[in-house]
């Protein structure tokens, strides 16, 4: 049976949706696609005629896949219970704990890796290859639990409890009800978080290099080695292409998984966090948070400890030295100005990235093929910062006609940060958008609300918290960004992470202590940013 006649379609609920995609696409085109393709093209040109280290590259690919998968699975196993405890239960200090969970994400990899190494140094196991791999995975978990918590948490908080309770009344235990009812509703968010974590693991460079002692080779470290040590841009280009293919396939798989399990529209708006019920409830929370706590607490407390352990006992000497206004590490800059610079860049990044991410998420959830935009936007997460960094130097440092240069305007670093923050922010916002029942929008439209007003008056109040969370994560990413920043930052104008890196390059107990102290300062800044952006009242301020 076929429908007859000409299809006369009333316009869809949001008419201009695809146009929203222009701004984020243009941004990524200039600041990511152009540098990457330029470098790869150049490298391929160089590669003609030379022989490539195929077996090395193949084993690097295998190691990458294994480490990333194991890392992702473990991060989910530890992060999901933590997300439950932080977003589904209401208890004193939950907000602080949530903000704390974001801190590892921003810490410069070199410091964390050093802290991990210091912790495992005594153990012989840690010196063996399996030991190194295990430590690397532990570091992955340490960094990435934040992603799971911030992506899945808010969506979980908005889920309608009624279906859950309906299942309970039908005889399902709490756990089974959760598995059968909430899990499917959460799956899109979980898949999004898992894909992001996988990408971070696969493109993690600092952690693998330091904890692997240079003997564990992943695609990302190989790219760095080939490009910056062997000066073999051909091999780097091939590896870069391999990496992009791996990343694209991962994203494809993730989106297929997600496509099968569309959001159930269970979002009902009001946060459903309940108080824990009795000692069993409290015990559940403690149990859910313990693994995450252990993974966090040990390295973080080591950091704090090292920052206050001075020659003359416990004291804040290193902090004082950091902020006494003198030039540090020979760098013509003080820690205060580096911190200020990092903060300014973070605010810019958060604002721009969140706005662009909202556009991406709208297109991704409204348009049938919109998911491709979301995938495209995730690509930069998985591509080596060496490729992007070198490519940026090759393409973006030119002077435009009229004398304007991105370098002079100090725009390169924020641009690089936005490229990395945008996909994360979109990953936080998209599930929230998807969780809004399309029928709610339809109801508003039938009441006379144009598509723009439907968004402003109906959807925005429901996704506000996720948008604030996205801004928080964007700011956090910017605060801790190191890989691309080292390529683009101007000497004499460091960010806090690059300053820490400088401090770690100079001998002396003072430099080491100051590096740890600066790390703690960075952590505190992140905490503050996270707490501000997570504040439900702040969410209301954004209206």
């Amino acid at each position, binding site marked *: 049976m076929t*429908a*007859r006649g000409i*299809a*006369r*379609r009333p316009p869809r609920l949001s008419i201009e949706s695809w146009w929203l995609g222009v701004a984020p696409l243009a941004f990524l085109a200039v600041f990511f696609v152009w540098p990457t393709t330029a470098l790869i093209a150049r490298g391929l040109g160089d590669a003609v005629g030379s022989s490539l280290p195929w077996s090395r590259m193949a084993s690097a690919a295998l190691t990458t896949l294994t480490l990333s998968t194991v890392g992702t699975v473990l991060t989910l196993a530890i992060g999901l219970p933590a997300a439950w405890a932080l977003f589904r239960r209401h208890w004193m200090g939950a907000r602080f704990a949530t903000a704390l969970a974001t801190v590892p994400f921003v810490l410069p990899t070199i410091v964390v890796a050093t802290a991990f190494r210091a912790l495992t140094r005594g153990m012989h196991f840690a010196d063996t290859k399996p030991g190194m791999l295990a430590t690397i995975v532990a570091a992955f978990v340490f960094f990435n639990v934040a992603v799971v918590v911030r992506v899945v948490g808010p969506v979980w908080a908005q889920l309608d409890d009624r279906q859950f309770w309906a299942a309970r009344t039908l005889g399902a235990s709490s756990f089974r009800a959760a598995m059968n009812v909430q899990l499917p509703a959460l799956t899109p968010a979980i898949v999004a978080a898992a894909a992001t974590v996988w990408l971070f693991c696969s493109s993690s460079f600092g952690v693998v290099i330091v904890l692997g002692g240079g003997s564990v080779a992943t695609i990302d470290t190989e790219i760095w080695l080939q490009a910056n040590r062997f000066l073999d841009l051909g091999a780097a280009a091939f590896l870069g292409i391999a990496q992009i293919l791996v990343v694209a396939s991962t994203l494809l798989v993730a989106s297929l998984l997600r496509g099968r399990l569309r959001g159930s529209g269970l979002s009902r708006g*009001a946060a459903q966090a309940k108080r824990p019920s009795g000692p069993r409830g409290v015990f559940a929370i403690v149990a859910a948070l313990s693994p995450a706590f252990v993974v966090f607490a040990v390295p973080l407390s080591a950091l704090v400890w090292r920052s206050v352990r001075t020659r003359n006992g416990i004291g804040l000497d290193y902090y004082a030295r950091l902020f006494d206004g003198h030039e540090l590490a020979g760098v013509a800059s003080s820690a205060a100005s580096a911190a200020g610079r990092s903060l300014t860049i973070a605010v810019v990044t958060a604002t721009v990235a969140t706005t662009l991410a909202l556009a991406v998420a709208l297109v991704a959830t409204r348009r049938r093929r919109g998911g491709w935009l979301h995938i495209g936007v995730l690509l930069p997460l998985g591509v080596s910062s060496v490729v992007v960094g070198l490519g940026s130097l090759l393409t973006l440092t030119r002077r435009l006609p009229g004398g304007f240069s991105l370098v002079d305007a100090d725009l390169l670093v924020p641009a690089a940060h936005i490229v990395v923050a945008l996909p994360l922010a979109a990953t936080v916002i998209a599930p929230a958008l998807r969780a809004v*029942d399309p029928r709610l929008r339809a*109801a508003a*439209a039938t*009441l006379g609300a144009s598509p723009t007003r439907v968004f402003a008056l109906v959807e925005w109040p429901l996704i506000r918290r996720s948008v604030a969370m996205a801004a928080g994560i964007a700011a956090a990413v910017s605060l801790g960004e190191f890989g691309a920043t080292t390529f683009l930052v101007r000497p004499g104008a460091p960010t806090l992470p690059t300053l820490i890196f400088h401090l770690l390059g100079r001998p002396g107990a003072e430099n080491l202590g100051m590096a740890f102290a600066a790390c703690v300062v960075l952590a505190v800044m992140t905490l503050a940013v996270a707490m501000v952006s997570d504040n439900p009242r702040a969410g209301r301020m954004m209206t």
Partner: protein
Amino acid sequence: MTTHEGPPGLTLTDVGVRYGDVVAVDGATLTVDVGEIVAVTGPSGGGKSSLLSAIAGIVAYTGRIAWNGEDLANVPVHRRGVGLVFQDGQLFPHRSVARNIEFGLEMAKVPAARRREVVTELLDLTGLTGLGDRPPTELSGGQRQRVALARSLAVSPRVLLLDEPLSSLDASLRDRLGTEIRDILKARGTTTILVTHDEAEAERIATRVVRIDGGILRPL
């Protein structure tokens, strides 16, 4: 070509809805006079909701849907003057009952004083007097459906579409609310299409019943 000739009321001519390869509605032809309450019954999956979605303009359709002779093709949802009440109400969770009801009036830029008047009138009409400041989460199922109805009625739509409005309520409430709804609709003379799988309910509320099965519409 918009003319105001042609029969008054809602006219569906050969309307079809398909999702990919699946045909949900096939060649539906129906006329609803002004003030009529037509019930559309049929089994689940028979195409009832899709028909309503087409009339509301939420999905693409083939064929012609006209109001008072004026073709509604290419008229966006928010300008069609079609009200829609869902099975689960779809109240805006972050707005109070009163603010839910006045939503459509806000969109129509009705001044605040007049809005308050209309809201009070509708709260009384639907038996919700005094509940204006409550958040929707504090209401019972029946109360929520009344708010949904009040909300849609506030803008005096040309056509009101009710998609299984009582299905989520228990039997006694269904009977009671069903009668109330019929009285309200008759009093205001609202042209209504009601979708339900409960034939008895259809008989009770509507002035005419048609049936849709496998996408094909048949009068009963």
